[in-house]
């Protein structure tokens, strides 16, 4: 007998797999690009966490006209970004710091924005994004818009003052917002036990007067189900809600981190809970997809990433002198006088 499909059709069930494969293929492509010297700055894998981002984003209203739900993703939630319409080629452009990237080379990796499509990239101090999403969803509530927001952050960001202040504000103002804590058990080299005394982040919810639920973050359908239920509640005026995704960061904080502070046996154990492997066998077992269909998805996503990355490689970096533009909407930032053709400080 088949498992329940949570209202998803065959196409939807396969969509989820497609997003999982796309996330992993994109990151594996980045590893290759990094070895080739194309990636500017750090590269952060979400290996083992892909299902959290994909399941959650799939449960939301994704529209391209500024009327859908709002997402704030993280570096390990690229699957959500793609589901909200973030273009694969922009992802590679961002990682390569190209002048054609959405931030024109000003900002890194997934730190980009499209308010029409409904996603706001994070800044590096991630706790801040709780405050930002609180304000975004406050605007939905005061204007009576039928929209909600979802904000991802790690177990580490849960320790910041900004997290507390943003969450407290949202709870008091009954902002229609879902917090998703990606508990991958590590904040760089700091284990969760050194970030908090509670055994589950869901214990923090009641302290703010909001509901909280933990879910297996390697199970894409379980995450989809939890977020869908939370979204229903939040959308109908239930205020702010929290969901904890439990899984494990199977790679270092970034590629430069060999993660030698983690017991290899633990990593090997989590390899058996790989979200793509788990879901793939489930799709076959329940006959939600055939082997041929899955192979096609795997090959297509691989090829999409290859093509997008190749295209991005060919694109130019920004001109250095572009650095002066856009600090303000209306105030001109001067070029250094020493860079002018006839240097003279009185003419700067």
């Amino acid at each position: 007998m088949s498992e329940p499909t949570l209202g998803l059709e065959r196409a939807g069930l396969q969509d989820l797999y497609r997003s999982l494969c796309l996330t992993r293929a994109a990151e594996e492509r980045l590893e290759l690009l990094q070895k080739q010297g194309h990636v500017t700055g750090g590269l952060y894998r979400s290996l083992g966490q892909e299902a959290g981002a994909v399941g959650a984003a799939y449960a939301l209203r994704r529209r391209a006209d500024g009327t859908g739900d709002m997402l704030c993703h993280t570096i390990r939630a690229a699957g959500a970004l793609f589901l909200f319409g973030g273009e694969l080629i922009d992802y590679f452009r961002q990682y390569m710091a190209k002048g054609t990237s959405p931030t024109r080379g000003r900002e890194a990796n997934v730190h980009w924005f499209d308010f029409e499509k409904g996603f706001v990239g994070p800044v590096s101090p991630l706790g801040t994004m709780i405050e930002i999403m609180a304000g975004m969803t406050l605007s939905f509530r005061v204007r009576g818009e039928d929209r909600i927001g979802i904000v991802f952050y790690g177990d580490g960001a849960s320790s910041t003052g900004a997290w507390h202040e943003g969450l407290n504000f949202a709870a008091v103002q009954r902002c229609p917002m879902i917090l998703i804590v990606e508990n991958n058990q590590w904040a760089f080299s700091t284990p969760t036990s050194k970030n908090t005394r509670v055994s589950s982040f869901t214990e923090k919810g009641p302290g703010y007067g909001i509901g909280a639920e933990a879910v297996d973050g390697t199970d894409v359908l379980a995450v989809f189900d939890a977020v869908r239920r939370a979204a229903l509640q939040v959308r109908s005026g239930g205020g702010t809600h929290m969901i904890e995704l439990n899984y494990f960061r199977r790679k270092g904080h970034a590629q430069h981190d060999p993660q030698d502070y983690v017991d290899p046996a633990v990593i090997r154990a989590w390899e058996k809970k790989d979200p793509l492997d788990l879901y793939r066998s489930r799709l076959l077992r329940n006959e939600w997809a055939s082997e041929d269909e899955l192979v096609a998805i795997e090959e297509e996503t691989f090829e999409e990433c290859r093509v997008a990355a190749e295209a991005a490689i060919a694109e130019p970096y920004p001109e250095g002198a572009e650095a002066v533009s856009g600090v303000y909407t209306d105030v001109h930032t001067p070029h250094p006088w020493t860079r002018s053709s006839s240097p003279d400080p009185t003419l700067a």
Partner: protein
Amino acid sequence: MDPETPEHLLKTKRREPVTMLEAISEALFEEMIRDESVFLMGEDIGVYGGAFKVTRDFLTFFGENRVIDTPIAEGGFTGAAAGAAHMGLRPVVEIQFMDFISPAYDVITNYIATSNYRGAGPQPLVIRGPVGGGNRGGPFHSQNVEMAFFHTPGLKIVYPSTARDAKGLLKASIRDDNPVIFEEHKGLYRAPSLREVLPDEDYIVPLGEARIVREGTDITIVTYGAMVHKSVEAAEMMETEDGVSVEVVDLRTLLPLDEDAIVESVKKTNKLLVVHEDTRTGGIAGEIAIRVSEKAFEWLDGPILRVTAIDAPVPYSGSLEDYFLPQTDDVLKAARYLAAY
């Protein structure tokens, strides 16, 4: 039925003089009427009307979706304002005393100030509140905060010295698409000498433009905020007692700095004194001095001097605070030194 405009916000309509505080209230009120995307957030601004009553009766008039009493968490609600600004609202955040802006330093400098540059779009928000000493407020109710933000590209910083400017500058700040730190000297809020009848029209004072408060030919004093009035007082004494003509330039906006106005005045008088109530090291006098050195070195006939508060936390006791703050007599002595140079 719409609620009626509170009586105390109709003074300009009735052609009565207003204080700087009343001018600020009128600016907020009129902007909220003009543009329904403008809304207020801050501690005790609703039911109580704000610690200084700047938003008295606003809650009754505009309702709690536009006048939001917040938890005591400046970082949290300033960050929420930034999120709302992304969604097309124009938040005006009140920091109850600007000394308390420090918890919001992270979100202001890392998030808000960088937003446009990062491609996340403009941040049309105003963060306003009372600053300045002289009220025996002690270390945490007296600070000037401009230089904590002056070094952050992407922000604008405004610091009015009169009722007329306060109203026009605040309106311009609210309409500006960039984030603005708006400092209101609490010693000027209700100063009787600053009461004036404002134009009964929707005027703004553009950001980034200094004002010549008093023309002169021998010495330039560049200043802002409460020090404008002490500088003018000293300038008048120089005129009557010494026969020296002092020009006083009120910056009004610190960022962007009106370099042209400063340089033009220095080229006329050839001597420059900078006066600010903020502490000495890292004060704006340093930035002004280097700009004049770059642009008008040949015109200088004397050292660039400054009169400032001392490098200390703001002390509580009157005798200490009076010693801490720059006084008219300090300005006078510095101006006389320059005149004789």
